[in-house]
């Protein structure tokens, strides 16, 4: 019996994909790794528990994370997706420039084996994007990081470094907090 297919199209890291016929029960991680050669999304538990495979889905209400190992392409059909390969920007010569989250992870050496890092970068990116839309008081930042990254597992115990990196990005980026140093500095500059 032929495997049932669906006509799939999506925007992945800004690039239009499809329409292309794909097996209807294909999981996102297989699409990325096997069909698109985007191997930065890591398959680990295959059960949506460890979040190493976290990818970003952009919608009208903003960005959100989903685990690529248990999210089928049927749900991603027609949506806009970002993977770890789409997080860095580019300079004028087209060379990749790490995003502020990536830069902070490098500075704080927020990984050891790095297997879970793409998931952490994506989850932190979504956190930063959500704060840009709805800034919070500095006093709530630590709790918010814990909530946002709680589901992401790291077996090299790099949590402290991930945490420090994300906190630094949030506190040093104007507009992510309502009363943070970056916010105050920014106000001073404007004045």
């Amino acid at each position, binding site marked *: 019996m032929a495997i049932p297919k*669906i006509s799939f199209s999506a925007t992945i890291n800004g690039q239009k994909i499809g329409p292309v016929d794909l097996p*209807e*029960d294909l*999981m996102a991680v297989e699409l990325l790794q096997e069909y698109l050669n985007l191997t930065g999304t890591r398959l680990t538990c295959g*059960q*949506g*528990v460890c979040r190493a495979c976290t990818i970003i889905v952009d919608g009208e209400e903003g960005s*959100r994370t989903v*685990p690529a*190992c*248990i*999210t*089928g*392409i*049927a*749900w*991603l*059909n027609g949506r806009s997706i970002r993977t770890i390969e789409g997080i860095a920007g580019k300079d004028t010569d087209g060379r990749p420039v790490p995003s502020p989250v990536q830069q902070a992870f490098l500075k704080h050496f927020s990984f050891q084996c790095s297997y879970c890092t793409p998931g952490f970068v994506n989850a932190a990116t979504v956190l930063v994007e959500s704060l840009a839309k709805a800034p919070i008081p500095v006093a709530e930042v630590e709790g918010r990081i814990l909530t946002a990254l709680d589901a992401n597992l790291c077996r090299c115990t790099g949590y402290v470094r991930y945490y420090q990196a994300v906190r630094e990005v949030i506190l040093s980026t104007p507009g992510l907090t309502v009363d943070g140093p970056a916010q105050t500095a920014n106000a001073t500059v404007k004045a």
Partner: protein
Amino acid sequence: MIRVLRVLCLLVVLGAVAAGLLMWKGWGAGPIPPASVDLASLDGPARADLIARGEQVARAGDCAACHTDPDGGSDLAGGMPMVTPMGTIYGTNISPSETHGIGGWSADDLYTAIAWGVAPGGRNLYPAMPYVSYHAITRADSDALYAWLMAQPPVEKPNTPNRLIPPFNLRFGVSLWNAVFRPDAAPFQPATDETPEAARGRYLVDVLGHCGECHTPRNLAYAMTGQPLAGNVIEGALAPNLTPDALVQRGWTAGDLERFLASGLAPQGVMTFRMFPVLSHSTSHMPPEDIKAITSHLLAGRSAPGPVPRPVAGTPDAAGHQLYLGLCAGCHGPNGTGQPHSSVPLNTNTTAMFDDPINLVRIIREGVEARDLAQGERMQAMPGFADRLDDTQMAQLVSYLRQRWGGHADPVAADRIAEIIRRVDGVEAAH
């Protein structure tokens, strides 16, 4: 006009007399059987035996289900909220604290509270305390329970005041209710034609286990009706129909039901909502012969051929199929086979089979936290999808699951989903 007034006066007087008679009938406790054992003269080993038996009674009676401290620390310190249409009632401290618990009670007091619903001083308990079920507890079980309770550490934790809607906050009103709905305390007796196992099963299900308190439909006065275990929506979840026909229709075998009670998991489902604490406090601690007795009583000698998937009913919702593949199939499999010890199979799961889709909607919206069940069984966390499915999509997915595996061809409409969510949110708000 005067005539009308006279008739009205007469009716008022008659009503007052009737209420008075009912109050008198339902007031306080009736006679109690003599103590089964002289607690004062028990020596060490005999007392230890009694305490061990009492623990089994506490497990089978699942005292902890309502009397546990939701903040942890003690199974007996109270504080667990129970949401009823009359308001929220909190389980009380039944540790042997003199100040806050039952430290000052005698064994007679305990029996009277359990079997008659009356605490020392003649204070009516609310029928959230299942004395209607417990009315047939044996004095020996009550006394063993007393010995065990008094051997537990006292917890000095004050009780949480109930938040009942007037007039239900008036305890004397319970006397009226008792007059109509409370059976007299009468220790359980096996029927003459009943095997010991059958009698034990009936006692465990109807009396100690008080299964009917959730699974039996209730009337307008919130009393259990004469359709025992026929299923009931309580605290925003369906406690399903446990009558033999219904169990067999949903594919329950005796072996699967035993596994379910002992380990929390069977191909037909996993202990969820209020049944998860029942598993962890009660059924997972019960001896195998008690589990067998419960199962054979519930199935009444019948048994399904096995957990066979139901044939597809009608045409499964096409949009629901895509949602299933996109959101569910990653763990439960495109054909609903699940993954051992992490995600339940859906093709034999009974949740989609219930007429009322409330449990299905809740599980999909809220998810289920990762759980250590019992006997090494466990389930990974299921995420909630409330933020990814609007009412229409939820209706499509729920309809699909019911059509594909539940045997229900009729689709569930989006406004039905909205109504279920309102009902569930109401219960949540009352906690």
